[in-house]
């Protein structure tokens, strides 16, 4: 699991580079990718956890990115986009595609719905993290000033 978490960090760094992010920002994005995937796969290993892993993973990505953005005075987007890529349910979309091509429509629909649900869980996680963290961080800053 540690290995896969590190791989996730590497993915975040590679996609960060692909999106033209540079310097120490990449390291932060890599750490966010590693921690979020580690937590997410830990939760996913619980039987019957369903989409909890995806949701919490996105929540952690969003929250850590908001904190990093406020500390480093950079747009949160720079951290979120590279780190969220690994959570995109590409394998389910692929399975669904292959099932449809083989005329296995039922399992195609099943995988497709799974992918849509996972994408929904990711969106809700990101949205919740941003909506909660941003006002908190702003208020904290105002107090400090």
């Amino acid at each position, binding site marked *: 699991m540690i290995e*896969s978490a590190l*791989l*996730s960090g*590497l*993915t975040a760094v*590679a*996609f*960060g*580079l*692909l*999106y*033209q*992010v*540079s310097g120490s*920002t990449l390291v932060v994005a890599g750490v966010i990718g590693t921690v979020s995937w580690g937590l997410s796969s830990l939760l996913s290993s619980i039987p019957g956890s369903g989409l909890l892993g995806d949701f919490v993973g996105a929540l952690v990505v969003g929250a850590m990115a908001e904190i990093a953005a406020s500390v480093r*005075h*950079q*747009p*949160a*987007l*720079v951290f*979120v*986009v590279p780190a*969220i*890529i*690994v959570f*995109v349910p*590409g*394998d389910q*979309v*692929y*399975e669904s*595609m*292959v099932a*449809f*091509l*083989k005329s296995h429509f039922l399992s195609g629909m099943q995988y497709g719905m799974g992918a849509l649900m996972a*994408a929904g869980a*990711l*969106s809700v996680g*990101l*949205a919740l993290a*941003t*909506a909660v963290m941003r006002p908190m961080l702003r208020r904290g800053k105002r107090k400090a000033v």
Partner: protein
Amino acid sequence: MSQTPSDQLSIPTRKVLKVIADAGTALLASGAEVARVEDTMQRLAAAYHVEAVEVIVLPTALFVSAAGSDTVIRRIRRRAVNLAVVAAVNQLSRDVSHKPVPIGELEERLSEARHTARYRPEANLLFAAVGAGAISQLMGGVRVDIIPALVAGAFTQFVRERLHRAGLVGGVADMISAVAAVLPGVAAAHWDVPHPGAILVGGIMVLTPGLLMTTAVRDGIQGDLLSAAARILEALLSAGAIAAGASLPLYVYFAMGGRWT
């Protein structure tokens, strides 16, 4: 033309508005959220003492207007993901609002920021290859899968960049790039690799509209519903185009009776 307060500072308002619109265009074309674009433009306007500025930003256009003065409208046709530009323009607007510089210098630094820290196209191939390789391992591939996945990532990025340079963007470009993304996986399946699916997903992930999904969510929270809806639609269309493009070689391969695990 009447004298506005900013004219006394010897900066014509129209010029300032144009530079502000340039900054907004750079941000929007690189994939920034609507709220950030509007924020940056307002901040720049305040730094140059342009009074009563109204900014409207849509996903494909922006308007900036100062009271009793001009309106500048920009249409954004080409969009690409470049977070370096977002970060650089953001930094520039922060610097300027602390310590205003002459408008000419701002213009220069802005055009610098628009071409900032870009890696060379060959380097991008390597990044895409590493990304695809790592994804293939995460998606349940075995060690051998990493080699075709590296090829798939680099090849996909190569095709996408060529298409972009040729002026082909949007759905059609996504579709053709997806065809390229799948070919190495199909070739590997032909030569008995245990998990051709992992290779395939690695290649396709290079094309994922991850930025669009993220900005759509963030726009939605901010209440920029028009932009959120448009970006969700764009992400769905792009995903559909990628799926369609990826299906084509697979379909032909299956129809030819190719083996697939």
